[in-house]
């Protein structure tokens, strides 16, 4: 029997308990069937009741409309009890199943804490923080949301690799996450990538390149199709061209990304406008630098920044401000796009090493005084402060 059947039996038992009470023979019969269904579904397993969906061991349960309606009744009862996950370690006894059904019935009636009174050997439950995101996104802390999305994007990017056919779906997921993260909390998203002590892996640098593009383009009023394609292309080139240190020249990186993009067959044999657009950017960069697509210049800049992040022949990593200053000194870099990037990131982006007026070293964490870019919020000796006097960059003499 499937795990969807467990949800069904949960619903039946909950309804029976609601209507007849826990001790009624109908409820006991329903509890027995629930226990049997759990046994048939081979515990241990867990059901997650998140949003308006039900997952079994984090896999979405395929439910038809009626089954979904029933499942939502169970979910509402569980949510009323502050529960988003029910786990079954072994087959429960009939009494345990009946107790669970009774607690859910209490939840359906709006009685909170009904589960807290229970001590069940085979059944566990927990609340999943942030599980209401989606329909109730306003309740989610935007900073935490941004950090989470960026972290998930880096985790996704780790699965992209630098060879083999491009995993479009994963790439899209990263673009989507960055889009949401930046819309939610721009600085937190940037800081998550730029100012932490984790190593600059290929995945992190790839996501950083894509974020740089997304952040810069967010200053412009662009159609989402153009913005997403540009960000995706930046991700593809970075993921395909960057190496542990340095990376391939831009043209080769674009060609490698193009090969990967074309190696992946589109679903149903029809290529989407987004893919065509991203491939057009890659082709332009692989063939003639940028062609007549100005957005390609931004992609080239993001790749350059992340390629130089860990320079070849060196044993150190550069910060964003080092990279921007290097790009600013290079006449081959398109000035307008570079200025856009600097404006988006801030002249003192998070991660910049600065020296305070009293000589103490600090690390920029984000904007500080809105009237003075040279008084950012700075991490000094474990505390974040907005300095009284302007800071100077660590490399300035």
């Amino acid at each position, binding site marked *: 029997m499937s795990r969807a059947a467990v949800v069904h039996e949960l619903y039946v038992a909950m309804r029976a308990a609601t209507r007849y009470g826990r001790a009624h023979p109908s409820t006991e019969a329903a509890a027995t069937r629930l226990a049997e269904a759990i046994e048939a579904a081979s515990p241990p397993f867990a059901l997650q009741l998140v949003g308006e969906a039900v997952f079994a061991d984090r896999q979405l349960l395929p439910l038809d409309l009626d089954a979904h309606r029933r499942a939502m009744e169970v979910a509402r009862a569980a949510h009323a009890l502050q529960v988003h996950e029910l786990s079954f370690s072994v087959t429960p006894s009939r009494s345990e199943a009946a107790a669970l059904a009774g607690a859910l019935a209490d939840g359906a009636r709006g009685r909170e804490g009904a589960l807290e009174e229970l001590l069940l050997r085979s059944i566990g439950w927990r609340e999943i923080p942030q599980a209401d995101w989606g329909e109730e996104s306003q309740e989610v802390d935007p900073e935490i949301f941004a950090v989470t999305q960026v972290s998930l994007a880096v985790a996704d990017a780790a699965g992209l690799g630098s060879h083999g056919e491009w995993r479009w779906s994963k790439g899209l997921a990263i673009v989507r996450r960055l889009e949401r993260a930046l819309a939610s909390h721009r600085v937190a998203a940037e800081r998550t990538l730029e100012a932490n002590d984790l190593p600059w892996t290929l995945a992190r640098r790839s996501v950083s390149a894509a974020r740089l593009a997304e952040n810069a383009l967010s200053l412009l009023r662009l159609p989402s199709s153009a913005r997403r394609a540009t960000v995706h292309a930046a991700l593809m080139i970075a993921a395909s061209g960057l190496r542990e240190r340095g990376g391939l020249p831009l043209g080769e990186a674009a060609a490698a990304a193009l090969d990967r993009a074309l190696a992946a067959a589109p679903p149903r044999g029809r290529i989407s406008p987004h893919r065509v657009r991203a491939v057009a950017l890659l082709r332009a960069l692989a063939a003639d630098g940028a062609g007549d697509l100005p957005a390609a210049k931004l992609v080239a800049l993001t790749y350059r920044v992340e390629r130089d992040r860990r320079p070849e022949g060196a044993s150190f990593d550069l910060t964003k401000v080092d990279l921007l200053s290097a790009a600013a000194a290079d006449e081959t870099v398109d000035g307008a796009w570079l200025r856009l990037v600097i404006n988006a990131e801030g002249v*003192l982006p998070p991660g910049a090493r600065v020296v305070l007026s009293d000589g103490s070293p600090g690390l920029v964490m984000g904007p500080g005084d809105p009237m003075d870019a040279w008084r950012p919020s700075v991490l000094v000796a474990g505390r974040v402060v907005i300095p009284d006097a302007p800071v100077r960059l660590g490399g300035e003499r």
Partner: protein
Amino acid sequence: MRARARGARVKIAGALDALVRASRSGAPTARLAANLRGAWLEHGDLAIEIRPSGLIVDGRLAVPADAQAARWALPAFMVGARTLALAPPLEAPDLERFAEALARLEVEEESLRAFGDWLFEDGAEGLAVELHASFVEVLEHAEAAFDAARGVRAARGAAALPTGVTQPIAAVELDRAALLPELGVDIARYADDARARRFELTGADLRELEDGASDPAAWSRAELRAVLELPALRSLADPHDVSRRLLAWLRERVEAPALAMVTGLLGADDAAGRRVAAALDPRALAGAILEGLRFEMPTEELGDLLAVAPAPLARALLHGLLAEASRRADARYFLTHLAYSWPPQRWVEVWAPDAIEPEQARALTRVLLGLGLDALLGDALEALPAESAAAALEAMDPEQLPAHERAIERLASQGDAGVSTLVGKMTGSTAPQVRSFVGELLRRHDTLPWEPREFSRACRHLALDESGRDVLVELSRSTRLDTRLRVSALNALRGDPERQRRASAWRLRELMEPPELRAALKRIRQTSASAALEEA
């Protein structure tokens, strides 16, 4: 809102669901999609809300979900789709594709993910789909495998950083970085520039970047180049869509890469290339090229295209170019250049001369003469309709006309009035061979309805030399020639008494001549007699 209008809007949601069901069952969808498109465009502001319970229109449940109707509403909702609205231009095939995608949608992770990606990738062309986080994303977010406490600290900027990073840093490393030739890190200069606000962007800068990055034409061109140059992509593209984009590009501006692409397509040996080439309507393609052509460059690429283009396309292009050349000097110049890069025999192969208008013929003549392709011009003149051939000949210098005797003879034998004009034109030349040609022409075609003024002028022209005056004698005695014209010929002999006598010598036939001619002959004879008497 009136009940009738509300009913119509509810029906749109029902029609969308009917289209999805038809698609699922494999029934024909074209008509349904066309009807839905028409109805939806009439209510362009309509947004259909998607809920697990069904489709909502104007706040009311319009199509309740059950095992059959709006079955796709639940999975679409799970994907994060919340509202559907129009995003014109919307074509019926767009709706068919959207319905097809919905028909395939199941409450199953892979299906949901693919549909969500498709929506995010702008797959639902013509529609604006409000897309929230999918349920799977909600769970991923909730279960994110990261240390939440650490994440919060990092987000709030607390001590998520190792103490090492906060130690005095940079000088040594930056010096080393600066030594790397590809970097040239110069923090001090960057700081100076930043303090001097040299990195600031003006509103104009932003607008320029915006315009560049969002320019739909530039994107379309780049996408088209990618599709046409990359076989892997070409095989996936919709040929009609490609052809539509290509025409749009050409209409906007004819550029060398676009023409090279069309040429490549016409000669493509892969199935996808042939499909796209087949989708290109020759008339539409020629129209687009002519619309976007600026008559500067690229002649070579257009020549290459004309060299391989099927005859209908080349013909349409050539005729269009000739039509432009008949009006514009730059087009004529362009056409002349173009012809250098195009084998001359192709002109004859493709041009369908019977359809060339007189004005086009004039332009063509100028082009061919400019190229020195006189022989080709002779062929052309023979193939042109009489009116156009006459126009073409008129475009030539009088000295060039004798070389096209065959064409003029053809016109004359067809009794074309344009020959009179040509003769009139030739009288403007003092070249003996032209005069001789005019004489022969008049002599051979004395039955033509010559235009009296032109004929009279021609006669005066012929009178300038001996052989011409001999022709005048013949003409004046030709009984087939119109009386007025014979009188003109007689009059032109005024300065040559000897030939005048020959022309006016009495013959029995004169009794049959019209009175005005007899009077003229009589007058000449009297004048001659008087002159002889005076001489005696």
